[in-house]
């Protein structure tokens, strides 16, 4: 990028965009009432959004005298024209989109509600392209340096031999993993992805605060931020000429693909610790965006020196792992022995050249901030020159001179542990009182090699929307660079995060910091990406069959839990309606209704104290177990949805969020509506579950994923129908009661209207049974479920065999179907004493057959986790 002509362009472009926004170009589709354009807009707008910055601190958007910097002009004018209320509306819209996309960030230690919506401030961070060009060049240089550093540390260690780095800086660091010695990737780069945290200091220069090198997070969130911003502010975004992010991700995919040892249809997987990880959303999002499988420890196995994914049709080889699991958890044989997040023998597969992991195992050592202390010497040794992009002044307490300085200047420094663990935190000297400072001094002196201190950088502030106005917040930028064949490509911009308050020091997502989209303004509209990085259409037919078995298992159970919850809600709703209805129902009917509720929700029946309906109603509501049973099933369903996030559409996620919402207020609604129509409290949940079923039916590709979910659903529904028939029609009671119970059954199965249309009579047992058992046109009949199950089972992959014997799942279903077809209504209706024994036996057989079928499917298709143990218990202390 040549510099002087561009900077002239930049000046003129800044002027142009200001003058344009003052004339005809209107950045928003709808302007607020009275939104006058022209010089008067700052004063006449009824509800303006004006940014004035904070006193005495450098501002990204404003000069010291309050003048707007050129590259911020268009954005700030546009926000002002939009006004506060409209901006608030857009922010609300963004929040909805984030939620529907399932964009969450999990905060550790919050067990009750760990999953938070990803925090996005809708005012972007703006950088001009000339300045960015310089930063970018510095980031490429730094990535190259860290790559060379990594190769030396796990190779000859010349930097130690030559005395450039003190031995303790490397050998004392827990991220230095000796088993990783000598592992190299194909090509020039071992470090595939390099991230830094950057801040602009009060002199206006960007300085690097630290590096992320093992599995840098944030790139996926940056992409999501961009996606939301471009949807919520389409014209503002379009007219601002923002550099695209897509090239970065195409390069990332191309690089990962090129690493595969076997270039014939390489399979790449994203290794995640699981749904409870803080950045799980990003793992699923990136896997989806890049077209890779999302896998966890249990999905993988090493066999015969290769890594395999356990999938429906057996084992599928994995060539490249894009990992989001920390180094030392990746292999229980050679690294952390008690880890459940890795794969046994993974490192040996890498050494054999049968798998590439990016970033390579052991790369976490580069996050050691002690290296920052020696970085100038390291750069001169490895690159032969000084780095363009400065690093924050860093002191290592393992050096006696540095230690003395740190102890004397503690109030002005930020102290960091050299190894970043889950509980390690940076401590800000300026925030500590004398007692805390002394305590810190003692802590440092006890173990000086384990601490560094850095100068506190007061980061430049940028405008942020705080609900009513634009306020100044400190911002830092996480950058991302990915290796290419010859160099590195830097994401234009990156992920901006901002402090919680003006001048606050702590900026960390775990502390609740919000993020911003980062706009690097192009001097002219960007052309579409050139051909060399365009995606080739890749056939994903193979992938339809190669879902990890853990994923199909979760889909199967998601179907089962959804159906189970729906059956419980429906029977409960029917019970409420009948007990509250104008027709008086007998104690006998009440008894059986309560029994049905208890059978279907699998809760103990409450003894009925009084004789009237209110008492019966009261007994259900006071039985907390019923509600717990329903919310338990729904929570289990939501967990399954989290585990299969990458397969569900954002529409599906919206409905899942509705379920989450309805669930969280179920208890309250239930208590409030006791006096009248309590059944209505259940309606939103039933509706949401129906919507979910409908969406899946209408939008999910008929691959194995869908088949397993629908198999779970059909199987569970079949079981629940049999259970309802068993509870409501097996008891032989006087005709009036019989009719009421039949009505309850039909109502709970949504078949009462069809029944009335067909028979126009009181509900009788034989006709009811025909409708809910035999009628294969009724989507809530047993026969319908069995036929669908048959279709699914026949379509699932089978082991190749020359025998003609039916597989056990098909035999089980055939027995069930035949028994249904051979049943006669009269025989089923025949009662002996107080029960229809034949019907009872038939329904119980169906229930057993369904449970049996579920077991057969589990055995055949799902992953069986075997308990592993260490052969020799090692008390690994991470050194």
């Amino acid at each position, binding site marked *: 990028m040549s510099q002087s002509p561009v900077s002239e362009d930049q000046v003129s472009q800044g002027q142009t965009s200001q003058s344009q926004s003052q004339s005809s170009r209107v950045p928003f589709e709808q302007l607020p009432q009275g939104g006058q354009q022209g010089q008067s807009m700052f004063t006449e707008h009824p509800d303006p959004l004006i940014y004035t910055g904070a006193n005495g601190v450098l501002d990204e958007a404003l000069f010291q005298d309050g003048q707007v910097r050129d590259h911020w002009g268009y954005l700030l004018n546009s926000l002002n024209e939009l006004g506060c209320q409209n901006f608030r509306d857009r922010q609300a819209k963004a929040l909805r989109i984030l939620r529907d996309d399932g964009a969450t960030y999990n905060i550790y230690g919050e067990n009750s509600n760990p999953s938070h919506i990803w925090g996005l401030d809708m005012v972007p961070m703006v950088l001009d392209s000339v300045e960015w060009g310089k930063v970018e060049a510095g980031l490429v240089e730094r990535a190259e340096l860290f790559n060379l550093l990594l190769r030396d540390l796990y190779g000859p*260690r010349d930097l*130690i*031999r*030559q*005395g450039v780095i003190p*031995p*303790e800086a490397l*050998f*004392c660091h827990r991220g230095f993993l*000796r*088993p990783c*010695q000598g592992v190299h990737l194909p090509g020039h780069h071992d470090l595939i992805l390099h991230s830094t945290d950057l801040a602009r200091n009060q002199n206006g220069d960007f300085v690097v605060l630290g590096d992320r090198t093992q599995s840098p997070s944030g790139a996926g969130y940056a992409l999501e931020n961009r996606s939301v911003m471009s949807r919520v502010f389409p014209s503002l975004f379009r007219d601002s000429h923002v550099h695209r992010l897509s090239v970065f991700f195409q390069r990332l995919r191309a690089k990962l693909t090129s690493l595969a040892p076997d270039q014939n249809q390489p399979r790449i997987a994203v290794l995640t610790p699981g749904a409870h990880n803080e950045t799980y959303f990003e793992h699923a999002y990136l896997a989806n965006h890049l077209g890779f499988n999302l896998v966890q420890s249990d999905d993988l196995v*090493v*066999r*015969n*020196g290769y890594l395999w994914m356990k999938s429906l049709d057996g084992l599928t080889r994995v060539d490249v792992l894009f990992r989001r699991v920390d180094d030392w958890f990746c292999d*229980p*044989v*050679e690294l952390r*022995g008690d880890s459940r997040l890795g794969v*046994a*023998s993974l490192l*040996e597969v890498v*050494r*054999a050249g049968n798998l590439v992991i990016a970033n390579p195992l052991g790369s976490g050592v580069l996050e050691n901030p002690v290296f920052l202390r020696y970085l100038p010497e390291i750069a001169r040794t490895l690159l032969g020159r000084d780095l363009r992009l400065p690093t924050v002044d860093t002191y290592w307490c393992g050096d006696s001179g540095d230690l003395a300085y740190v102890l004397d200047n503690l109030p002005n420094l930020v102290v960091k542990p050299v190894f970043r663990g889950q509980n390690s935190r940076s401590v800000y000297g300026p925030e500590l009182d004398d007692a805390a400072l002394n305590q810190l001094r003692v802590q440092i002196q006890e173990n000086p090699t384990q601490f560094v201190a850095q100068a506190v950088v007061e980061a430049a502030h940028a405008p942020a929307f705080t609900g009513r106005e634009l306020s100044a917040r400190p911002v830092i930028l996480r950058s991302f660079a990915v290796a290419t064949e010859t160099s590195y490509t830097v994401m234009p911009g990156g992920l901006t995060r901002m402090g919680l308050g003006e001048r606050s020091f702590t900026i960390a997502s775990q502390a609740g910091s919000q993020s911003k989209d980062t706009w690097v303004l192009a001097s002219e509209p960007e052309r579409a990406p050139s051909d060399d990085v365009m995606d080739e259409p890749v056939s994903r037919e193979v992938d339809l069959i190669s879902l990890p078995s853990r994923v199909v298992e979760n889909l199967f159970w998601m179907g089962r839990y959804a159906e189970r919850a729906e059956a419980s809600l429906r029977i409960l709703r029917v019970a409420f309606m009948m007990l509250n209805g104008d027709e008086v129902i007998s104690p006998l009917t009440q008894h059986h209704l309560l029994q049905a509720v208890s059978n279907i929700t699998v809760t103990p029946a409450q003894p009925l104290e009084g004789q009237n309906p209110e008492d019966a109603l009261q007994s259900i509501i006071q039985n907390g177990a019923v509600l717990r049973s329903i919310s338990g099933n729904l929570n289990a369903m939501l967990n399954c949805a989290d585990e299969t996030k990458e397969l569900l559409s954002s529409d599906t996620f919206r409905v899942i969020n509705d379920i989450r919402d309805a669930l969280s207020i179920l208890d309250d609604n239930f208590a409030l509506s006791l006096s009248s129509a309590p059944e209505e409290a259940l309606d939103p949940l039933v509706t949401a579950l129906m919507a979910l079923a409908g969406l899946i039916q209408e939008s999910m590709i008929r691959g194995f994923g869908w088949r397993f979910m629908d198999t779970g659903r059909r199987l569970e529904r079949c079981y629940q129908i049999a259970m309802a028939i068993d509870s409501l029609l097996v008891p032989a009671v006087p005709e009036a009661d019989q009719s009421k119970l039949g009505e309850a059954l039909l109502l709970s199965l949504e078949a009462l209207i069809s029944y009335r249309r067909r028979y126009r009579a009181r509900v009788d047992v034989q006709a009811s049974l025909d409708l809910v058992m035999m009628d294969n046109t009724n989507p809530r009949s047993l026969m319908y479920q069995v036929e669908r199950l048959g279709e699914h089972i026949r379509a699932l992959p089978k082991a190749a065999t020359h025998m003609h014997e039916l597989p056990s799942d098909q035999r089980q279903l055939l027995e069930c179907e035949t028994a249904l077809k051979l049943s006669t209504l009269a025989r089923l209706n025949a009662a002996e004493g107080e029960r229809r024994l034949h019907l009872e036996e038939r329904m119980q057989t169906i229930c057993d057959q369904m449970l049996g079928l579920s077991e057969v499917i589990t055995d055949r298709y799902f992953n069986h986790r*075997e*308990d*592993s*143990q*260490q*052969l*020799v*218990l*090692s*008390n*690994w*202390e*991470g*050194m």
Partner: protein
Amino acid sequence: MHYRVKHITEYLYHGRVSHCYNMAHLTPRNTSRQRCINSNVDVLPKPSSQSYRVDYFDNTAYHFEIQKPHNKLVITSTSEVQTATQPGALDLHMGISCRDARHAMFQSRNADILMAREYLMDSPMVRASSELRDYAEALFEDEKPLMVAVKELTSKIYTEFEYSPASTTIATPVHEVMATRKGVCQDFAHLMIGCLRSLGYAARYVSGYIETLPPPGQEKLVGADATHAWVEVFSPGEGWFEYDPTNDCMAHEQHIVTGWGRDFYDVTPLCGVIYGGGENPVLSVSVDVRRLGDPAK
């Protein structure tokens, strides 16, 4: 001396093991006084995949994976080695003094010394402490030759600690050994390493075998030998020297080295992950060190 070493490790599981992944350090390495002539590791059931590699410490690591269900795992390592006495170990009084050694460890820019500093630091199973320093400090007078002081430490540990095979499990923390004054060879090695590091000298853990000789007139029993562990200490400018606190001596021809590392953790003879297997597998180990005569003679 020319030896053949046969080291058999057997695990009996109470439950079936469906598959397992293991790493072994069972192949003797080459050192300044030892040459490994040949070596072979044989595993039953037969591994589905296996490989040898040279690890971070230049030891030979052997990896194997078994995919066949089994209740018993037998690993037989057979090696032929040629050993000699340590060079330059004859006159301990000639070498560098304790003070000069300490000074060199921290001030020298010599590459060997810088690299040896890795063995001055805490490691997974050995941490420096004031207790260990106090225990050994009096022996390491400034003007005394370092090697003399180390020899005295070897004798002190030999004299003051009881060899007691029943007293420790595989991983006994050093402070516990200090408290009970009992242990086995690896505990004494860890203890001695901890003392040396606490005083500012680099020391590493050596894992291997020792030939035991039967009482005069008796036939040597097969399997009566043992895996053994001792210590190497770094003398700046002079190199590494091996001391055996369990036998109160410097290592000699009868000490056969498989590998070295910061402590036991780096040279565990066999570790890994097994699937299934039930609780408390029964481990039995037998070692046989046979003299083959000295081919040099």
